[in-house]
């Protein structure tokens, strides 16, 4: 049957082209996690006040007003850094998870034909109990 002509193509693909595809998929996932958590931007703007919320310094020197505004602005920067830290950590954890998952999937991929065969044999062996 003509359909079986695909088998050699498939086997070759599984251990050549598919490995590049796998790498590309992993690279896309890696890139997406960085993009989704805006890791680079969050790191670059780590000490920028959250949502640019700030208190303007009023004209004319007034110690109380000056320190009041300074405190608020330092606080907004700290809030910004704290929130960013949380998401940077989540992002990094996601990247680590992607590495672990990617490695596991890669291992599975390499033994995939055996895995399928094993599932099949295990399934057939269950009929022996009937």
């Amino acid at each position, binding site marked *: 049957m*003509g*359909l079986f*002509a*695909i088998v050699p*193509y*498939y086997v070759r*693909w*599984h251990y050549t*082209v*598919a490995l*590049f*595809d796998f*790498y*590309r*998929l992993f*690279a*896309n996932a890696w*890139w*997406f996690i960085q*993009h*989704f*958590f*805006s890791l680079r*931007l*969050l790191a*670059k*703007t780590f000490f*920028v006040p*959250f*949502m*640019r*919320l700030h208190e303007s310094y009023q004209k004319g020197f007034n110690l109380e007003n000056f320190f009041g505004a300074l405190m608020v602005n330092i606080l907004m920067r700290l809030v*910004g850094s704290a*929130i*960013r830290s949380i*998401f940077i950590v989540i992002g990094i954890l996601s990247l680590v998870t992607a590495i672990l998952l990617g490695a596991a999937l890669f291992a599975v991929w390499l033994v*995939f034909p055996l895995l*399928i*065969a094993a*599932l*099949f044999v*295990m*399934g*057939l*062996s*269950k*009929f022996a*109990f*009937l």
Partner: protein
Amino acid sequence: MTIEELIHEERFYRPAILLDRYLRRASRHFVRAILSGAVAILFILIVVADLGPASGLGPVLPLFQGLFLIVLAVTVFSYVLEAFYNSYYFSDISTTVPEVAWTRPKISFSLALVLSDAKRFGLLHGFVLSPVGYEILERLGLSSEAIAKLVEGEEEDVSFEVGAREGMVTVGEYADALLNARKSFQNFLAAQEVSREHLLGASEWVEHALASEKRRLRWWGRDNLLKIPSIGVNWAYGQIYLLEKYGTEITSTGLYRALRENNLHAAELQELELILSKSNEANALLVGREGVGKMEIVAKLADNIMKETVSGELSGKRVIALDPTALVAATGSKEKFEREFIKLFNQASEAGNVIAVIENLPAFIKSAEALGSDASALLDPYLDSAALQVIAFADPRAFHSFIEKNGVLMNRFEKVQVKEGDTSALVRSLEDGVLAIERISGSFFTYQALVAVAESAERYFSQSVPTDAARDLLYEIAPYMERQGKRVVERSDVLELVEAKTGVPVGGVKEKEKSKLLDLERLLHERIVGQDEAVRAIANAMRRARSGMTNPNRPMGSFLFLGPTGVGKTETTKTLAEVFFGSEDHILRFDMSEFSALDALTRLIGSFEGGEPGILASTLRDKPYGVLLLDEFEKASTEVHNLFLQILDEGFFTDASGAHVNARNTIIIATANAGSDLIWHYLRDGKKLAEMKDVIVEALISRGIFKPELLNRFDGVILFHPLGETDLKEVATHMLGGLNERLRAKGLELEVNDALVNFLVKEGSHPEFGARPLNRAIQDVIEERIARKILAGEAKPGSKIVLEEAELSR
């Protein structure tokens, strides 16, 4: 690439093609769905059976487990098999955001499918029988019977080479080469009235639709992943509540979602990105006609920002279109407006990542002016700062009349001129929309119908925005076809609809117009006496123009009528208006003797300084279809002649505000008495006018009345000779016939005899004025005598009025 090389490249896709041949994509999808369902059911059964004796399924648990493991293995493999297929299927798509480890094949997947069939059935037959080739031929309006004929008999065995335009060889390029190499294919398409451009256009359309679908399906690609918004992008920037209230983020608009990959306005987009990347005063003013695609350029900019393919300065920017009308309407008074305006722009500046888009800057400033506020002065400090960027739009007219005069705005903005797209660009922009309409209405558009929509939108709806007019036509054609009981929309259907909407005989010559054109001499002679040569020349020129032999980007016809007064020039114009536009009301008449002064051109095309529209521009905008009659054309100024040089050549002109005015749907007739003396002179010498035409035209040029290049632009320079006695008698009989018709309404009849006609010709003809005094003679003498008879009771309803010679000369 040679065919052999192409076939060699086809091997790259062979695994996917083989899989597709034995198990189609849709069938595989169906099988996978069934298998996945079976896995789920078996899993549930195992869980239930495992509950213990209570379930009653304990004895068959191993059966379920066995089946589950086997079906699971098959299911997982079916998914991996699809990944195997997709690996090849998606390998030819282009992506905006580059992806790693991707070697693109040298031919497209669609072409590989064609080549796979070409190997089996022949290069032409394979193309026709392949799914892609067949769809292309269907898009060209070919019936299955016609397509079947194309694969009848043996195919000639001649190989050919296929050239690639942009790296990867596509089906369109294969079809083009096939057309060059196969005479039978050329003849077949020619017989079906399909041109090479149509074949290439339809191929591109079909391939583009396939590529779009592939891009949509490949959700794991970076282009699609980028559509998921990131977390935290806006934390580094401020909030813009007010701009969000009065504006819309470009990336959330329908226009952005419908954006398609093309090179349209690529130069303008590049210029815009450069301007916005500047460190200060980075504001751009897009100047272009409404509908030319200004917002599309901005949407593409937003897309590039989203895909991070812009320079670092633009990274992370938000492009937000402000709705100035909403802002003005919501505030209502000068104080409120200014307060809200300043608050909004302060907020946007502080946010630090905003590119604000003001769609119609002149209109916004004017509406602010209505509240007593100077919006350009309010805007100025923000335009000067680096914290906020503004993209504003203006049409050429408003730009010239409003912004160009405003030094402040001109300093702050850099102008980007947005060029008009051509018809092929409009066709491409409609292709996706057509597919959506097809899905809703169940209709099927041929490529020629799509081209007809684009051409008609540009030519017959020039007062509207072409893209809007084209989309309106597309939406109207579906119910129109439903009423006709037809599914396949062809070019003729589109033209019929356009004709029904505009009343203009559009497109190719149809049966009704064909018979009119073939019979044009007789139709003209019904109202024009004599002037056989003139009538023949006009009829020939109109036939040439309407049969598509002349340039379509020119007026429907253009003539210069030369001859003395009262010989039928105006009557000919009226007849042409009636024949081609259905009534004399479609004559747009200009007395060009009024356009001889220095301000003539300004009066015709408008004044830039005064902001007044020109009379010719306004007339053609109001009535874009009809006969444009330019009486006494020789008396117009040289500037006016130069203006018509362009109109006759290109079918349009640009008015003072820079807007295009279309004259392609008009028949232009210029009349002139110049050269009448020569006509008289040569006729007196017994020469034939037709033979002296070149001499007369030369004389007009040497006298400096017309430039040779202007005369050459007319489809025909027609000479009208003075009317002879026989002609005048015929005209008199015609006119008396007209009078008789009026009398018949009162129950009276005038006897038209030789004596009456002879008297009228004697009294009412003048060598200088031709037949023009005849009308006066009928009024002054004939009608006067009849009135006397009616009042004296000599003419009663039912009676016949006879005017004796003695009575007339009294």
